[in-house]
């Protein structure tokens, strides 16, 4: 079976500046994979290329064995690619459950419906509620999003992505802005995500990364420095030098 997501010799350069160099990357089905690297290592560029927001200079991207390099974000989403954002990217004037329902409605293909009231689409509402229950947000479903505390808004970020029922989920710093004392709440949620989803997490909170990920890829200066298990990565001298060393000492 082909991997959930794969890149082959993926390159991106802006003029003489290379921000992604020959990235070969494989995300297996059901993976719990982390992408780490110091600031400016090219993590964001890489994610943007995966989502279709940025066209690579060369190389290819495969989703479930099919090439999607030239496809739009919308086409990739249809194939099961979902993401969350580092900075809250939510629908602030809507309720919590509506935030999820917008994503569910797109997947059900009912979002063009102009005449029947939205409340009549029970399947959309029920499924949105299920997602909220899974994340422990059911009690807040009817609250306006803007009335939610920041930490819970971070969970809504994940809820919207789950509403898309992705096969591959890119989590862009899910714990960003959350005090490390509270990041265990995020970790609990991540641990409870359906096992069949392949998850790639980009995160600066090393504790969270090492507890969550089973494989880690280290990016440095636009290239893959190494890939391995958490134990291999934390004991690697090069990794310690470019990254961990600076933080752990």
């Amino acid at each position, binding site marked *: 079976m082909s991997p959930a997501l794969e890149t082959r010799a993926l390159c991106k350069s802006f003029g003489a500046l290379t921000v992604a160099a020959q990235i070969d990357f494989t995300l297996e089905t059901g993976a719990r994979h982390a992408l780490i690297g110091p600031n400016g290592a090219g993590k964001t560029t890489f994610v943007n290329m995966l989502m279709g927001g940025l066209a690579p200079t060369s190389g290819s991207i495969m989703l479930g064995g099919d090439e999607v390099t030239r496809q739009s974000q919308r086409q990739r989403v249809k194939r099961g690619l979902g993401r969350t954002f580092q900075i809250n990217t939510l629908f602030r004037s809507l309720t919590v459950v509506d935030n999820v329902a917008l994503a569910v*409605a797109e997947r059900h293909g009912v979002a063009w419906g102009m*005449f*029947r009231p939205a409340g009549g689409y029970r399947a959309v509402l029920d499924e949105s509620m299920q997602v909220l229950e899974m994340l422990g947000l059911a009690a807040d479903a009817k609250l306006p999003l803007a009335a939610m505390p920041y930490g819970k808004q971070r969970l809504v970020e994940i809820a919207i992505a789950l509403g898309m029922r992705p096969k591959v989920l890119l989590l862009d710093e899910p714990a960003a802005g959350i005090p490390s004392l509270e990041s265990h709440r995020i970790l609990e949620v991540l641990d409870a995500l359906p096992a069949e989803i392949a998850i790639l997490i980009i995160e600066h909170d090393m504790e969270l990364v090492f507890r969550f990920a089973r494989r880690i890829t280290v990016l440095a200066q636009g290239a893959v420095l190494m890939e391995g298990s958490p134990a291999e990565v934390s004991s690697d001298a090069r990794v310690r030098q470019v990254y961990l060393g600076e933080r752990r000492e």
Partner: protein
Amino acid sequence: MSTPSAASHTGSYLSDPRVRFIEWLPWVLAIACYFAAPTYLPLGSYILIMILFALSLDLILGYAGIITLGHAAYFGFGAYVAAILAVRGTADPLIGIVVAGAAAGLLGWLTGLVILRTRGLTLLMLTLAITSICYEIANKAGTWTGGADGLGGFAMKPILGLFKFDLFGKTGYLYCLVFLFLGWWLVRRMIYSPFGASLTGMRDNVLRMHAVGSPVYQRLVVVYSISAALAGIAGALLVHTTEFVGLKVLSFDLSGELLVMLILGGVGRIYGAFVGPLVYLIAQDSLAKQFPEYWYFGIGLMLVLVVMFARGGILGLLDKLLSRMRRGKP
């Protein structure tokens, strides 16, 4: 705690789409005015037309978040199509409405395809440019449009062959009221639908809508075309009730005035489009009688007060007062 959707008619999977008791109030008032103020019916018709026009703007500006200063292009286009049709084709009003609405919708679709690829200031400038182009075409194509003199001298046939347009504007008033009702019904249905919810989504966060796989551009073009068609119908109503069309219907002034009315009433709420034109046009009418030279000062002052103290317009202010009263109760 009540959801924001309850008060402002935001598209939501939780809102109750049934028409509430108070929502019949505008219609009861409108019919009461027909009997109570027969001398004001021409002004009344104009208010109804502007409400329909404001409703069409609210759909794209208030709900979908498309910033525009050029909505008069579609109103004016519909008006000219209706007038030219009456002069050169048929003077049947219902055919005129359908043709004008379809033509304005088509123009909305064609221009929307181009301009909705942009956002923000670029979009604003493009909407302005489209109005200016339409204005100049109407100005120069004098044989068809009458140029700066405008186009008149035609008489509309009775509606359905039964109801003649009378001198006092009685038929015209009810004619406008019927089309406003249909427009309101359509917009209201749309806002409570999944489509309406996705419009709010695009206004709130277009980046996220892309990320959940929403066809953002296509959806904006569709809502823009629908809005343009409604604006075109409003323009046709104006031509049918006044039996005249002039360049003012394509002017930047009209776009700006419409925006002021909507802001005054409350953007992003259906009834903001009702309250704004009503208050603005009645204030204009009475101020112009009291202070013929300074009435614009009064309008300006009203707008400054609304922008400074009532960000959600008159309806936003009402909401705040109501919720304060409720909290005041034990």
